[in-house]
């Protein structure tokens, strides 16, 4: 049955290719190293402490080991080399000295957080909505559905690529940090 063996071959090759793509993709993009609470003391700029033996930054990038978020901003600002959407937000936190424990507490099994933790440091969502009232096409921090109470984490993800939750139904072209 020539056709069948052909089909089998296609499936095998296809699966291998698929696997390769998945592996490459996960290596290159957002798939972070396994998160460990023991890495809590690590400085945010010390890439290789977590990304073992992997080059995360471009060839000529300055050494970031001793840098904090303020130092990053010396080169990366809104208009130039913006980091918006380029780093998982947990890195921003780490760089600003907000480590795992500061959000998740001392635990071996960190759990998903609610927005209360965000608000505790970042301030009230009402104030945030006031700050972003002129964003086009509409204010991302308030809606007829949830008011200002939509969980921050639905858009601003910490350990994965952030997403535009509104885009499920709306054509709002927000850039989500």
């Amino acid at each position: 049955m020539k056709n069948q063996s052909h089909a089998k071959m296609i499936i095998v090759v296809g699966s291998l290719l698929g696997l390769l793509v998945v592996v490459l993709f996960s290596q290159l993009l957002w798939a972070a190293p396994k998160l460990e609470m023991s890495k809590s003391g690590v400085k945010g700029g010390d890439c290789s402490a977590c990304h073992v033996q992997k080059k995360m930054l471009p060839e000529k990038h300055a050494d970031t080991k001793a840098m904090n978020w303020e130092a990053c901003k010396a080169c990366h600002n809104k208009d130039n080399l913006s980091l918006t959407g380029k780093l998982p937000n947990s890195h921003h936190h780490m760089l600003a000295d907000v480590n795992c424990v500061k959000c998740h507490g001392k635990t071996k099994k960190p759990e998903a957080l609610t927005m209360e933790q965000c608000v505790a440091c970042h301030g009230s969502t009402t104030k945030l909505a006031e700050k972003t009232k002129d964003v086009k096409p509409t204010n991302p921090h308030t809606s007829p559905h949830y008011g200002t109470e939509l969980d921050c984490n639905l858009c601003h993800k910490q350990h994965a690529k952030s997403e535009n939750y509104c885009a499920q139904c709306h054509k709002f072209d927000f850039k989500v940090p």
Partner: protein
Amino acid sequence: MKKDEPTEKTLTRRNFLKITGGSAAVAAAVAGGVTLLPSPADAACDALPKKWDETYDVIVIGSGFAGLAAAIEAKNGGAKDVVVLEKMPVHGGNSIINGGDFCAAGTKMQKENGVEDSPELLLKDMLRAGAYLNHPDLAKTVAYNSKEALEWTESYLGCKYAKLNFHGGHSVKRAHGTINQSGSEVVNKEMAKAKEIGVKIMMRTKLVKFLSNKEGRIVGLEVRKGYKFPDDNSGKIVFMKAKRAVVLSSGGFSYDVALRQIHDPRLTDKLGSTNHLGATGEALLAACARGAMDVQMDWIQLGPWTSPDEKGFGYTPLFCEPLVGYGLMVNPKTGKRFFKETGNRKERADAILLLGNPALIIGDSYAVKKQVVPHALKGGMEIGAIKKFDTLNDLAKAYDMPVDVFTTQVTRWNSFVEKRKDDDLDCMIFKDAKPTVEAPFYAARLWPKVHHTMGGLVINQDAQVMGFDFKPVKGLYAAGEVTGGVHGAVRLGSVAMADCIVFGRIAGKKAAGEKAWG
């Protein structure tokens, strides 16, 4: 996930086959046919967990209009521990993206607006639109309790309604529009009230299956806590005991392409939906697997007022629906009207599908200013779904319409508006409608999207779910879009809110009144 863990897959494939005794019976059951299936007692073949992880008096599945109404009434009806399970990361399901029109007959607002109405007339409209497939006792329950349900949301929850609206297929204006033109006004106030009186809300918790005892009584649930939609392997398996009852208010299945195609093969993934992504049918099927009967599953409603130029429900329905009876709807291919603008949803959606191309709804400045809320107009225009033109000629040209035919058609329509009678298509023309003459003119393209699933679980007037043995499935209640029979072939616009609140409240009260099984 371990292989031996009880999961939804094992339920739907293996156990379900065991329960119903073969694929033919499954096909018949899923397709909505009535077959001689074993009674719910026979369906109870799973061993119950040795230890329940959590225990409640009443467990409600779903946090929309119906579920929260049920939870509130169950708590107020004496159930001590009431929990609402929501599989999504946000509450409110479709209710929170609903347009906020609450159908009620014989209300104060209607009197203030000089509208004469009665539950009898509402029931008549529901049955006529439903092609008399409605279960009359259920439709009657909604019609006759609609006014009280509306008043409950006002006086008990503090909801505010600002405007009386019209929806196609109704004899009179009876849709009470919430102050923010969104169902969120009601569902968020239900949520606040539920929390205030001590109802527990559990997000990201998904039903895997119903558990019943030897007598076929529903005694609890297997759920996944910490569920991450749509990953069916996410979260942790937890067994929850329901001492008194479970209320299933999980909504419809408009976004369940596989299930909707079983019942209406035309509804492929080529058709969009106005619903939220979680509007899928697994909870409904889980009830069927426990012996609950389904009905009229192939009556799936398409919204005739959605736009192909924006996502989801969008702004266009809030532009189109208030304009019917004030402006005209034409087929851009011919430049002519083709169907009664104030017809019901099914008639209009079918008529547009039959054209094979999007239709146009048109209103002049007078009608738009009077009828369309500013935010919907602004939003629709920014997205490009609603367009503005200085002249009717410009409008015709923009949509490649034959200019002469179109302007003649507008003139003809205007003559009908002036005499308040449409000789061509019998459209209702409202008292305050004026001829379409005042520039600028507005238009939007219309193409149907899957909107509401009329079919679902069979319930009785007490919101008890009925089994294939024509007896209630003990310990199981249902309310809202997951049920079938209330609307028959067509749900009229704005009746969903009434349906959900009326039957949600009944389900909650009755669930609280159940005798605890253990």
